[in-house]
């Protein structure tokens, strides 16, 4: 027995949707490509700020204050401006305290986000040496320049780079889960 399609039945076209539908799809795609607002920079800042929050979960400090975990923001780039929204969010079973502006003693911060020009980091680095402060920045090459967590773009996405030696010197334990998704730099 060989039952195939009934004889004489017209074979359906490869694309049974009417041509106006195909045309509208094509036009709409062109329209979208032309008129979509350029909001990539805003989204990029939000993704970096979200990374800061999630990264904290996967870092262990030798000791944490009981009342809150302090995130200090130095500088005023797009990411710095967003991080203030995280005030009060619970992380590591404590509320997140946001300090805008660099305190007189930056070692009281558990996390320090360094925004703005590279010169500021050069000044800060010696003051943090030997203290358990997780430093994060989106400055180019931040992790290569002694910072712990930096960002870099790849294939349209934001990726993390981590300096394990800087973390070790700060007596911070970086989770293997975090290292899985990051590029490590010397």
């Amino acid at each position, binding site marked *: *027995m*060989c*039952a*195939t*399609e009934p004889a004489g039945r017209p*074979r*359906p076209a490869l*694309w*049974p*949707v*009417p041509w*106006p*539908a195909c045309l*509208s*799809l094509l*036009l*709409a*795609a062109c*329209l*979208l*490509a032309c008129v*979509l*607002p350029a*909001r*990539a920079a805003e*989204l990029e800042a*939000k*993704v970096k700020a*979200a*990374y800061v*929050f*999630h990264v904290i*979960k*996967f870092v*262990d400090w030798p000791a944490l204050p009981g009342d809150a975990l302090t995130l200090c923001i130095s500088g005023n780039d797009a990411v710095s401006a*967003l*991080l203030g*929204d*995280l005030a009060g*969010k619970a992380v590591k079973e404590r509320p997140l305290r946001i300090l805008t502006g660099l305190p007189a003693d930056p070692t009281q911060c558990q996390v320090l986000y360094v925004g703005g020009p590279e010169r500021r980091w050069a000044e800060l680095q010696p003051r943090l040496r030997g203290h358990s402060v997780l430093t994060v920045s989106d400055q180019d090459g931040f992790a290569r320049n002694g910072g712990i967590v930096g960002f870099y*773009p*790849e*294939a*349209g*996405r*934001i*990726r993390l780079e981590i300096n*394990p030696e800087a973390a070790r010197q700060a007596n911070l*334990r*970086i*989770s*293997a*889960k*975090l*290292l*899985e*998704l*990051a*590029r*490590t730099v010397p």
Partner: protein
Amino acid sequence: MKPHRLALLLFGLPALSWADTPTLENLPLAGFVDVTSLEQLGNLVVTDTKLGQTPDSVTQQILVLRSDEIERLPTPNRNLAELMRHTSGQFVNVLSRNDANWGAYAGLGPKYNSYLLDGLPIDSFVDAMSLDSAAIERVEVHKGPASVLYSGYLSMDFVGNETPLAGTTNFVLRNRVDEAQTRFAAGAGSYGTFAGSAYTQGRSGALSYMLSARHERSDYTPYGTRGSWLTTVQTPRYEKDRAFTNLSYALDRPDHTVSLFYQRTFQQGNMGRPNRDFEHHYDTFNFAYNNPFATDWHLQFKYGERRYDRRFANDAFPASLALVSLENTRQTIRPADLTLSHRHGRDALLTLGVDAQWVDYATDLRSVGGAPTRENQATARSTGYFVQEKIRLDDWILRGGLRRNMLHNDYALLGGNTPEVRAASWSKNLWSLGTRYNLHTGLAFYANAGSSFMAPTAKQIGGTVSSLQASGELPNPNLKPESGIGRDLGVAWQASRDLAIDLRAFLNTIGDAIVTNIVSAAPSQVRSVNAGSARAAGYEVDARYSPASGSTFFANFTRTHSRVSDPVNAAQNGSAIPFAPTTLANAGFSLRLPGELSASTYYHWVGRYYDSTDRDSRQAYGHFGVINARLQKTLDRQGSQEVRLTLDLNNLTDRQYRMPFDFRDPGFNAFVGLDVRY
């Protein structure tokens, strides 16, 4: 409105789209961090090494369907396999809402594409029908051979074992909750379908929990071809109840966890005749222990149980609709996996471990007024040792792996008889190699090859005949496993931030292919022998455009040429591999529209395919296109509270296409649902 006009309207929606509508990325940062995870931000995949890896360090092509996309994808038969229907290379062929997926991948039939639930094997035919999508965080479609890190599935039911030669699909469970959420959903649709579900997730200290219950009932509709064994004389009703719990406890750190997942599915109904009732129970259990116990070491232990209990009533159709017998199939499969990963050198990852599986299988038959009799009883077990090393040398990724697999089957009873062959064992060494070259940011070339094997089914080894004069399958204790090699070669190109284009070619070959030949017409006897080989070659082209608005456009095309060689049987020598279409094509878009409206439309084209290799008796299928659409409108949103209306329009052009085993798609159907979450 005529389906074609509706299709025109849906395909015309892009012209109305603009980006100024609330989307995930428009949420304030505090809300954004609640709905994203480190894995999502990092775009990680786990299937290639069992640990999270960035795509640029993976030699295989792994397609990821994330939870937001899963929510948009149409699943007319409520089957998780349908989530992959619009991805390249996949032929998803769900026979009905009560039946399995009988698809194909990369030119090979359903036995050569395995499914995983969080890294442990599940049944690629059956389990996608019972599992609940609410439990799934993402789906990773791993293209190409994966037999070194993952064993086959030792199912004794249906057509036997399944192995990841052409690829594997990993349903990754949600394992961490940051924010409490509760959802209620209810809806109604064609064929008197009603569905309701309740889901809650939350966190108490270090414990993340998810609980879900779902009920669905339907009068359904005839889903067989006219005059076939699926002919109905009444409405083929069904009811399906599913409940799952997923618990994850962080022991001392967020990445040192113990997780438990348990789902129970109960499905009952009738196939449209008074004595064709069915009642199925499925239990799926996964346990996982994860411990990155040092910066460079990671230990994982996983154990699972899959219990299947299926009961069917049989009549004597077409001669009589009276009850003839009751059939019960029970199978329990317990997979376990212990994996140790060691990160070393600059960016190298060593993965080694052991996995095992234990299977109990039994079927009973009870004639009317009689006592149940055992028809089949068999057990199986397997042990595998595997090691894989992946290293990064600047822009090159190199991967190599080996597996030693031992498999043993015991057959106590086959077809009601004590078989002549009571046991069979096989040992195989498998290998896998892969490389990737990142030419520059966004452009990479990759190639992979790996071997696999498939054990013969119990009936092929032990036979089903009680004597040399009886009809049935003759035993063949010397039958060897089918051996296969999968290869692929591809280019992954992120042409811009928004546009990704992939091209992949594949070549899968099967040696010692098992073919079943007729030995005698009277009595009717067949015997399976290693007499053949099979080859499937083809290519896939994928394009995906995802502008920052949250909208997505995609298109893909797959072309396959397959051929079976069987010098013993001229009728099937040179035939195409069954269930593998020559052409598959998909196109679609998902848009954010003004007024908190989103629209997704998917077009799916299936080329010619056959249900058998025998050119004299095989039947031809395919050559049809289907359009499915989903419209979602947020009716109210206040903070984390949301009320959402969803309209599914499936098979818009009402194509009632034929499928193998006399199944037929019922054509156009619709479903409208309301979802409240807070």
